[in-house]
């Protein structure tokens, strides 16, 4: 089975799941006693025509099942409606989803860069002081509520003045040169990344440690060492490669966890991401926005899983075999 065929198969498989997601979220939202256009009606800056157009577009006078199909048809066409403040949902979602993606990718990059070496060192020094210390620290890292940690980091930022408090860009962002813009964004990204990294670092380093311990214990590694190939060479060429594979599977889960975990962190740091958008939309009962946010979030999650499956297939010949 070629890799392209596999990719196609995975994508096709995920379509019914995404349709189910839209069904579940649609009925969850419609079950609520909230009037989908209530907020719009109260907003004097939204014209009557817009409200009428929305009523017609959503088919609010028709039964729920019909409404769902109307929504689905519009969604496929790329029309997600307007927010309660009258903006286009698709524009807003696109911007926010990209920001969340930026944050998540950044976090995954750093956790892997730091977590994998830590896990390797811990496994190679099994039951040493470093190993025990790591276990303790990673337990602690997993136990801090993300929002509480974010709040503590805000205190740190406030007291030292080293980092900007919240947001993604400085007020004078549009007057900056390209280089300044990039450094400005990175500067703003640092604290949210740091918070989320601390939370997921524990998982990655522990998993890496456990995998490497497993492979080091396997027969082929013992065999290779007993044959007289140097321990170092065996570890680098044989053990490490196989130990990293399960981490790739974890990548999908990690991404899922990040999307969720980021919501609270985004909220505390006032980071303009998807999680915060949904939260605000929920509080304002902005149905269009909530619905679109949910679907896009799920879409990102499913894509993350597909990508990690494909990566695994490329790196691990054992998966390809069956």
């Amino acid at each position, binding site marked *: 089975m070629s890799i392209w065929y596999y990719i196609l198969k995975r994508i096709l498989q995920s379509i*019914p*799941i*995404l349709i*189910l*997601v839209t*069904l*579940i*979220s649609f009925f*969850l*939202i419609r*079950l*609520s*006693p*909230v009037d989908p256009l209530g907020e719009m009606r109260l907003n004097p800056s939204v014209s009557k025509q817009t409200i009428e157009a929305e009523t017609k577009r959503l088919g609010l006078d028709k039964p729920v099942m019909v409404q769902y199909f109307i929504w689905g048809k519009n969604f496929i066409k790329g029309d997600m409606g307007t927010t309660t403040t009258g903006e286009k949902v698709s524009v807003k979602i696109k911007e926010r989803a990209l920001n969340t993606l930026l944050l998540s990718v950044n976090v995954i990059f750093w956790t892997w860069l730091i977590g994998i070496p830590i896990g390797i060192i811990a496994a190679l020094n099994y039951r040493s002081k470093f190993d025990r210390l790591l*276990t*303790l620290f990673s*337990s*602690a890292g*997993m*136990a*801090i*509520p*993300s*929002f*509480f940690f974010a*709040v*503590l980091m*805000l*205190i740190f930022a*406030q*007291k030292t003045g080293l980092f900007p408090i919240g947001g993604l860009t400085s007020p004078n962002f549009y007057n900056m040169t390209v280089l300044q813009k990039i450094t400005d964004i990175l500067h703003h990204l640092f604290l949210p990344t740091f918070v989320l990294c601390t939370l997921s670092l524990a998982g990655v380093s*522990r*998993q890496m*440690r*456990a995998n490497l*311990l*497993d492979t080091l214990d396997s027969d082929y590694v013992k065999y290779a060492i007993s044959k007289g190939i140097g321990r170092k060479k065996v570890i680098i060429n044989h053990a490490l490669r196989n130990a990293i594979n399960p981490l790739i599977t974890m990548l999908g889960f990690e991404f*899922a966890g990040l*999307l*969720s*975990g980021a*919501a*609270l962190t985004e*909220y*505390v740091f006032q980071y303009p991401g998807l*999680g915060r958008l*949904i*939260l605000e939309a*929920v*509080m304002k*009962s902005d149905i269009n926005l*909530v619905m679109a*946010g*949910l679907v896009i*979030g*799920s879409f990102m*999650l*499913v894509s993350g899983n597909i990508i990690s499956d494909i990566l695994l297939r490329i790196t691990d010949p054992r998966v390809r075999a069956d």
Partner: protein
Amino acid sequence: MNINFKKEKISLVAFIVLIVLYVCILFASFLSPYEKNYSNRKLSYAPPSVIYTITPEGKFSKPYTYNLIREFNPKTLSTDFREDRTKRHYVKFFSDGFEYKLFGVFKTKKHFITTDNGGELHLLGCDINGRDNFSRLLYGGRISLTIGFLALFISFPIGLIYGGISGYFGGMIDNVLMRIAEAVMSIPTFYLLIILAAILPSNMTSSERFALITVILAFIGWAGFSRVVRGMVLSIKNEDYIKAAKSIGQSNLKIILKHILPQTSSYVIIAIALSIPGFILAESGLSFLGLGIQQPDASWGNMLKEAQEFYNILYRPWLLTPGFLIFIAVLSYNIIGDTIRDVLDPKSEIGR
């Protein structure tokens, strides 16, 4: 199950910490000097009371404290608290305070710590409404530390039966059930939680709200859990004893409940132990956002709402104590969960 506590000193510590926490919330009304909703508006954001054991004259004394007086400082334009040094209030132990029912049964007035007449003792200061932070921490713990357990009792049976049915019957049923589970898993957990919490009507009593939040929390994890159970059932259902049970004509339901699901018990115990912290964190997160437990009820998450204001974080650190308690509770659960996994699943090396 024999956990070697001598080898695992740290999990013994974690275990003791948890027991202490649970005993504290069990005796919350005995340990707390004030009722959950007792508020003294004059003491809004009052700092913790200082307990003195040495008098200004340099003599030892029974522990005592001073009441606080709120004053507006016209120079700094801030509200300051100053101790009313004219009257000492001695701290009393096992003395009378407000009346309550211990365990909901025994009427009593005894409290662990109070002060003599007219004294006010706020061990961890007050919140914006002048409610005693220490007492609310204890009452809040009742919600924060039990809601996860309750959610567990809803979520795990659902996951078990769902996964059991899916794996046992296979075919079309399996396909449909698993696609639904995957769809639920595909929605980022916290987004789902926020939305479920937001569609709750706002005019509920606090116990209704508590029950519904529990149900919502139960939405976390059942899908992933049922998938793993399904996988295990798939491998178990071809064992000879299942075929034997079928051939003597036992009903499908009985086979699933009596012969298959018990085989998954060690995985279930591990999964339960490892998922409690997630429930606690989820509750605190929801309440922090204002979507979970609502005022005037206390939970550690909604107490931390106060930490959303900069001034509070910087100048009223006692308002951050719920965060540390969540941290301690979750850490202890994590450590114990790891230990249980090591004991029940010796193959897994994680956290050893």
